[in-house]
């Protein structure tokens, strides 16, 4: 297996964007190409992650991107795995470079939905659930995670204020990220007093619907060394699955796919959770970050909430969780998110993260899932 490296990375701002989905896909890809210091003609293929291109009247984004980059002869494909699309596309690109099929690829994730409004997004996102049992019965995504939150409150010593602390922390980090969607300091009271979306989750427990695109250049170690620019190495890649519907899981306060993906990624990297300096985890809702940090092995089951209460997941504390601001503050353009997490790790490990830099970080982890964690990918990166 070839060693695989990330040679460049770039994102648009996340938020409400005026440009078309094709334009922001291209803008992020150009930023990644320039960051890598390569010529587009070095790219052998394109991997695009996107869920609702139909909302901006453009699916089959790959050939549009490749044409805009002046490499219309190069192959491309689109991958949809709900909110986990970005990390799944990254994984497929990783596998192709590792297998030696390609030495340089562009992986670009994108979403553009904010123009459709809350009802459209709530409805269409619910199609990512196990629709017969969940979406059809009126379960929104906030509702499904609220069901996990209710189970967590029932099973463990936790309060709604504890969930709010996750939002407050991630907004603090997002304030230091110029590309974040919600750059606003908030308090526990702000969260507790925000409108209930799906009890016990309130508006400020939820990530926003965002537009945005993120892109990375993935290549073989040989290609990275010849290029001469800064790069980071992908040392672990793991995937896993869970029952599609919450009802099918033995415990509703854990996401099986996260545990399986993490186990595989740690095994490939030859490390454990203790070796991770910082992690970008899938905090689509505050409860999700708590569950994730337990399933990834950073804290025991039921103890993630205590870690948040004690401030152990803040920037430059025991383990910096979501230094970018996470989905909660940075934003969640669903097809882009998994790639955007890699952009953050690249920026952190190559000294480009500015005020939100995790000090002396050498090893970063990304964790991204689709739906309520029905599909999941975990990747581990190391500075070179």
């Amino acid at each position, binding site marked *: 297996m070839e060693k695989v490296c990330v040679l460049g990375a770039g994102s648009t701002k996340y938020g409400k964007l005026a440009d078309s989905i094709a334009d922001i896909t291209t803008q992020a890809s150009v930023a990644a190409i320039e960051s890598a210091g390569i010529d587009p003609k070095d790219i052998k293929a394109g991997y695009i992650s996107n869920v609702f291109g139909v909302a901006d009247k453009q699916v089959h984004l790959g050939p549009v991107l490749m044409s805009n980059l002046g490499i219309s002869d190069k192959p491309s494909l689109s991958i949809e795995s709900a909110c986990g699309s970005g990390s799944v596309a990254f994984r497929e690109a990783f596998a192709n470079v590792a297998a030696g099929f390609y030495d340089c690829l562009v992986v670009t994730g994108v979403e553009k939905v904010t123009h459709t409004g*809350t*009802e*459209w997004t*709530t*409805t269409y996102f*619910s199609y990512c659930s196990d629709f*017969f*049992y*969940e*979406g*059809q*019965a*009126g*379960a*929104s995504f*906030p*509702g*499904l995670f*609220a*069901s*996990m*939150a*209710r*189970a967590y409150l*029932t099973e463990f010593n936790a309060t709604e204020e504890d969930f709010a602390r996750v939002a407050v922390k991630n907004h603090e980090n997002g304030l230091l990220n110029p590309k974040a969607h919600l750059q606003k300091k908030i308090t526990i009271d702000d969260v507790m007093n925000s*409108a*209930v*979306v*799906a*009890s*016990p*989750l309130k508006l400020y427990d939820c990530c926003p619907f965002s537009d945005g695109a993120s892109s990375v250049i993935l290549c073989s170690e040989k290609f990275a060394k010849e290029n001469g620019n800064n790069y980071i190495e992908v040392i672990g890649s793991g995937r896993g699955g869970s029952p599609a*519907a*919450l*009802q*099918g899981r033995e415990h*509703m306060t854990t996401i099986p796919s996260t545990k399986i993906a993490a186990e595989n990624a740690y095994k490939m990297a030859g490390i454990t959770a203790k070796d991770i300096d910082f992690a970008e985890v899938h905090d689509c809702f505050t409860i999700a970050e708590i569950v994730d940090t337990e399933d990834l092995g950073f804290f025991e089951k039921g103890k993630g909430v205590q870690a948040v209460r004690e401030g152990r997941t803040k920037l430059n504390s025991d383990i910096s969780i979501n230094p970018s601001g996470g989905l909660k503050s940075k934003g969640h353009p669903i097809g882009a998110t998994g790639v955007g997490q890699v952009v953050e790790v690249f920026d952190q490990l190559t000294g480009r993260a500015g005020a939100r830099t995790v000090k002396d970080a050498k090893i970063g982890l990304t964790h991204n899932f689709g739906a309520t964690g029905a599909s999941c990918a975990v990747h581990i990166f190391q500075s070179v």
Partner: protein
Amino acid sequence: MSIKEQLIEKAKEGKVLTHKCTQCSQLHLSNVYYCQNCGSKEFQDEILDGTGSVATYTIITVPPAGFEKYTPYAFVVLQLDKTNLRISGFMAKIATPKDLPVGTRAKITGFDERGIIIEKQ
């Protein structure tokens, strides 16, 4: 009649159509074609009472399209009696968590455009 249509028919009678693996006896909801436990594809129908207790739930106040007129309502995960199976559905007229403590006895009472309908017992 497709399996899904049979499941819907049974839900309308307050029952749950399940598939019991003939090899290992593992019970599944009827949408599975292979046993997760042993990989067998031989099942026999088993009809369960749609009764149980609320395993978890949420009260939705920002609904997807088509649910505005029912809001607020609960989405419920029901732990079925005497099995390890759970099934999800819609419960009308739940406004606050006081209305539906976890563990509340509930049962399937029908199926319509809101999916499987669950009511308190």
